[in-house]
């Protein structure tokens, strides 16, 4: 199991403590890495948590790619290290080019905070490798720009490579092909709009998020 998890913090990030709390409950150790740093240290896995990095200025996730730490994140990903982007983290990974596609405004043009049903679409990724395709999960979303989109070729390619990781069972935001999460071709970089850390305790109503986080921390 990955014992040391780097949680990248930009100005405007706000889910870093929640992610750390959920990860710690699984016995791993998290370290907050500020965006100005240029090294991930000895981290064995990297999470880019949700929030509003750089205030979502210009475009969600667009400015974060220029933060010094992102070079290390890209190198870490290229070396096959597990990288997870949650919500704004997902947006950052698409803007950085580590994941295909983009996230646009929800079809309803409103921010949406609600628990949604998810279905595991691929268990080839680091986030789902301990699950079975078709597994149903209940996990909250919390976003304005979660409407996944990509061009037709990319979609076909992603399908061919089994890169669609999670789908909504009742599409809340207009995402193409009900996509809630995708991976890169190798499966070591994953982004998803739902917040697994928000489904990490019985008292919060669901522990389904832990299924994903456990998979993410499992030995490669």
């Amino acid at each position, binding site marked *: 199991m990955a014992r040391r998890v780097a949680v990248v913090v930009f*100005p*405007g990030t*706000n*889910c870093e*403590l*929640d992610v750390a*709390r*959920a990860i710690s409950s699984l016995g791993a150790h998290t370290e907050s890495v*500020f965006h*100005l740093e240029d090294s991930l240290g000895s981290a064995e896995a990297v999470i880019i948590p949700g*929030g*509003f990095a*750089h*205030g*979502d*200025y210009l475009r969600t996730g667009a400015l974060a790619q220029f933060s010094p730490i992102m070079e290390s994140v890209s190198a870490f990903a290229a070396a096959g290290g597990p990288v997870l982007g949650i919500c704004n983290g997902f947006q950052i990974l698409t803007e950085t080019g580590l994941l295909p596609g983009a996230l646009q405004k929800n079809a309803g043009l*409103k*921010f*949406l*905070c*609600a628990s949604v049903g998810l279905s595991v679409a691929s268990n080839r990724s680091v986030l789902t490798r301990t699950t079975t395709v078709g597994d149903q999960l209940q996990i*909250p979303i*919390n976003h*304005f720009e979660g409407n996944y989109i990509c061009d037709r070729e990319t979609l076909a390619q992603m399908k061919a490579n089994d890169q669609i990781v999670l789908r909504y069972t009742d599409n809340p935001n207009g995402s193409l092909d009900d996509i809630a999460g995708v991976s890169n071709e190798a499966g070591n970089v994953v982004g998803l709009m739902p*917040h697994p*850390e*928000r489904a*990490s*305790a*019985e*008292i*919060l*109503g669901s522990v389904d998020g832990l299924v994903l986080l456990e998979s993410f921390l499992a030995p490669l």
Partner: protein
Amino acid sequence: MIDKATYQALGLTDDEYEAIVELLGRHPNELEVAMYSVMWSEHCSYKSSKVHLRRLPTTAPWVLVGPGEGAGVIDIGDDLAIAVRIESHNHPSAIEPYQGAATGVGGIIRDIFSMGARPIALMDPLRFGSLDDARTRYLVEGVVAGISGYGNSVGVPTVGGELVFDDCYRENPLVNVFCLGILPKSRLVFARAEGVGNLAVLLGSATGRDGIGGASVLASAGFDDSSATKRPSVQVGDPFEEKRLIEACLELLDEGLALGVQDLGAAGLSCAAAETAAATGAGMDVDFTQVPQREPNMNPIEIMTSESQERMLAIVTPENLDRVLALCARWEVRANVVGHVTDTGRFRIFSGSFTGNDPADMSRCVADIPCASLGQGPVYERPQARPLDHAEVLLADPAPELLAMFPDGTDLSGELLRLLSTPTIGDSSWVWRQYDHQLFLNTVVGPGGDATVLRLPDTERGLALSVDGKARFCRLDPNTGARLGVLEAARNVACSGAEPRALVNCLNFGNPEHPEVMWQFSQAVDGMSEACSALGIPVIGGNVSFYNESRGADIDPTPVVGVIGVIDSLAAPPPGMAFSPGEHVVTLGTTLGEFGGSEWAYVVHGIDGGSPPVADLDAARYLHGLIRDLVSRRVVSAVHDVSDGGYGVALAEMAIAGGVGASLIPEDDQSHAAWCFSESASRIVVTVPPEKLSEVLTAAADAKVAARDCGTTGGTRLIVNGVFDVAVSDLATTWRSAVPLALGVNE
């Protein structure tokens, strides 16, 4: 010298101006009079309400900070404290709903972290006119978007609130905002400037011409005759700036680098600097040229009184300055030394560098006033008058008319559905789904329940929060209405097993120069005071919003309260309101035929007048004690407070939540209509597994609370024998579509 027209345009009366002249021993200059006019305004000085607010009970052994500071603070054990505040942003939201609501959120968050607390929860009690008005629909969408846009982005979850519609708010909506923060007791900090030679460091946004005058009296003023420099008086919020400011300030306090912190609110830097110095009896010298400015050629009045958002003033020692600047730079927060603490007791503003008492410096002095004087505004005991028709209003009981229309034996199914379709009673999730209500992983019960329940990190305990106001009851009788508001909030909190520990109030009233409004205010303060004393809840802070009127018509008196309760053991969520099959439905409390101000009488049938329900404080105390006990011991499976729409609506909401019906028998010593729709206070519905029924009934009898087993849950219809019979799915559809339909949005 200032001419009469100038100071009057700023809202100062002749007497107030004379008082300033006397305080200074000379005439004030333009900058000085600008500061006084804001700090002595109703908004900042509480000059009309002060004499009344003194009657509120404010002490308890666990109260660390009472009214008067940025926020009230209570000790909740484990070396933890909770900071709470509530405020209004009514007028800005009426003019520009998005920014008005957004900056309301921003302002109250700063009040919380300026005490050293991390803001962890927001709640928004909202009141609008009827949704059949297009502008009201625009206001609702804008206000909700503003709260969502700012609150979500700044990273503080919005975990509850109220959504009330009444035509008295058509032109003057009420946008109140409540914020709660948590802090280690050791981090508690005050807005104090201590130590001669210590530095005043301005943090956050550059200062612009936006928001000069803000919510206060400057907005219409003639400081600058050039129309080119006019700006909207509603400030513009930047949640990203605020988020960085929160992190930087809390880190400064954690590192022990700030001796005092103060939010820049009304009257901007001038007020913040003078107040911090007045708090210690020290003095403060400020060089306004050191203030970062958004645009060139701002004059000292603009710089010193601008209400640009997202700014804080920190008092630091010269030795720590470099560390402070480095820490702020890391968070991309501007930090500039703008002044220093002196021992003069005076607040002086200079143009350019200064050292203190050099005559050359004094020639650059543009303002020089006693620090304390800004807080020594007038106090008024304004005339009060009970409205002439008050006795008549109270006697206009809607009961006879309603009972004649709906004698026993009438099918009330349609009436129940009509109630569920009113936007005040209908499902408000269209609003709160736009709010991040889950951040920080504390939200055990989110918006939509009787009370919001948060778990407290690293403890076994939890908090229960509820914001409530009963304006229509207050209009009929402000004393009783204010009591009923307190009782409802306390009852909601009790329904989650919590002991109430503190209350904050936001007193929204009309024009205090109307004697009827002052009478309403005084009566409401008395009612609130009596209810809080009876329940042992200290009032630890509040806000008064007067002048909620349009075209001479005052709003209904609307005291809104937020009650904070502590749950000792929160191993599992408290019982929700959902029916599950095979349980007994037990009503707790006494129903009378009380329809005055009820949703059924007023909203459905348009019948005004009558007395509000009786607010029996002993009955409330007994009921709250009982429900706390039953919930803590988890002998009840579902709990729901009875409020708007009476038992009918409470039962329907429980059925909708569980997707399960019930078959019940109405009480026989009341008319059916009363049993269904009366809004008698201090009532709760619980469901009980059969094996626990006698235990619950015995506990109720011991607690002196009337309890009645009305029947059992199950099936797909909500049936009250001979009264109504509706499919739960129909109840649900009506209730869920009420707000979206009224707003005209697709769901």
